């Protein structure tokens, strides 16, 4: 494959979509750089959407790439990736990870998986303000979920830490989804189509589980026997 086949540039409504298809990331990066240098006149001032395929890329590396593109007068706006890790890293930097509504085939997949409830993602870090985690299955966080961050999960959400951000479990409509946390004090808690907020007056923090009972979101102490 020549460089032009590895790196495709096309204009779409949201900006310039650059698709990188290469097995080796450093080679892909070099090819990308070359393409941009070659076509710098045409590209200058553009808003870029970079589709990196299956590559797993660290946040710092994405940051470098964005800074490099800045030098060429290009603004990196979104990263599209098949890798959950790369998507999360892009979100950490405040980059978009989807350009419009999720594609139809993905949605179908989402609903099926959410109902069987088998797939989960484990996040072992503090979710800071501005961080958004979206996953079609269950989400488990080891760490705090700070105010200003959000978790949207197709299934359940379990937080081994303080939950203070916005959380939406059963986002695809699963009424049986639950939200558990060592200290359950989210800015807003949603399960399926129900919304609740944390009461102002709270006792001593204790592990709690929120679920829908008779059409209302209720939180009960989260103990080994609670199902």
């Amino acid at each position: 494959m020549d460089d032009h086949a590895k790196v495709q540039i096309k204009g779409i409504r949201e900006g310039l979509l650059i698709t990188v298809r290469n097995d080796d990331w450093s080679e892909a990066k070099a090819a990308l750089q070359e393409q941009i240098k070659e076509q710098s006149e045409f590209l200058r001032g553009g808003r870029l959407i970079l589709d990196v395929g299956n590559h797993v890329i660290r946040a710092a590396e994405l940051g470098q790439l964005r800074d490099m593109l800045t030098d060429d007068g290009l603004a990196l706006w979104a990263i599209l990736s098949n890798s959950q890790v790369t998507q999360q890293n892009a979100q950490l930097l405040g980059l978009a990870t989807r350009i419009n509504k999720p594609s139809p085939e993905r949605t179908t997949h989402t609903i099926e998986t959410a109902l069987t409830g088998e797939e989960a993602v484990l996040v072992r870090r503090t979710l800071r303000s501005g961080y958004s985690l979206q996953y079609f299955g269950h989400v488990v966080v080891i760490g705090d979920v700070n105010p200003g961050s959000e978790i949207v999960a197709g299934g359940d959400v379990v937080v081994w830490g303080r939950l203070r951000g916005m959380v939406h479990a059963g986002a695809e409509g699963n009424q049986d989804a639950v939200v558990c946390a060592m200290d359950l004090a989210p800015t807003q808690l949603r399960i399926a189509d129900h919304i609740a907020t944390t009461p102002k007056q709270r006792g001593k923090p204790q592990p709690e589980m929120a679920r829908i009972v008779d059409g209302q979101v209720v939180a009960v102490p989260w103990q080994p026997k609670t199902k």
Partner: protein
Amino acid sequence: MTNKVITITSGKGGVGKTTATANIATALAVDGARVVCIDADIGLRNLDVVLGLENRIVYDLVDVVEGRCRLRQAMIRDKRLPNLFLIPAAQTRDKTSVSPSDMVRLIDELRTECDWVLIDSPAGIERGFRNAIAPADVVVVITNPEISAVRDADRIIGLVEAEEKGPVRLVLNRLKPELVKREDMLSPDDILELLAIELIGIVPEDEKVILSTNRGVPIVLDGKSQAGQAFRNIATRLAGQNVPFLNLEDRNGFFGRISRMMRSGGD
């Protein structure tokens, strides 16, 4: 020394980035180090005013980047301390006139010239902020004991951590110990619990800071000010020495009581 380039940032505006930069830089320079501070807030420069050097600006950061002058020519020597320099921001341009890699190149040139480089970041998380953190060895995040400032600090810490920009340190500015005592203000413990990074200084609220800013004389040069002492301590900690935190609650003496009485009377 490897940790010599320090970027001071906050996310939210008005929490004291510029004041902190001016004071920490001055404190380091008083101890004899060669210090350069850079105002990265292109278009909204302030650091020159706080240092009292406004009328000496000939060349600025953008002039250096665009090659209109040499780096040395843009370094303004401080009035009081011969080993303290300022590279001012351009006032008539905007953040896009400098790129993150321009900053890295410029700071690399400075590394051999001085002991410390302090970069005063603009508010926000956009280009100006990225320019400011690109060359940083250490990032100092300033926050106030207010929910909005702490929230923004959290966001900033997340961004800096993602970019793997060396250690992140916290300075808590404008704390009012009386209010914390009455549980009317977020306490340092509340803030640290949320942000979970190393604290390197708590600066108490001090009216003299406003005066010093207006006069262009950093508060660290005032031996009597508690805020000045707090900034001197931060400089010492950045230089790698341990100093105990100020006991801000030690104001139960006569003056402490008087000032509290007057304050509650005023409300």
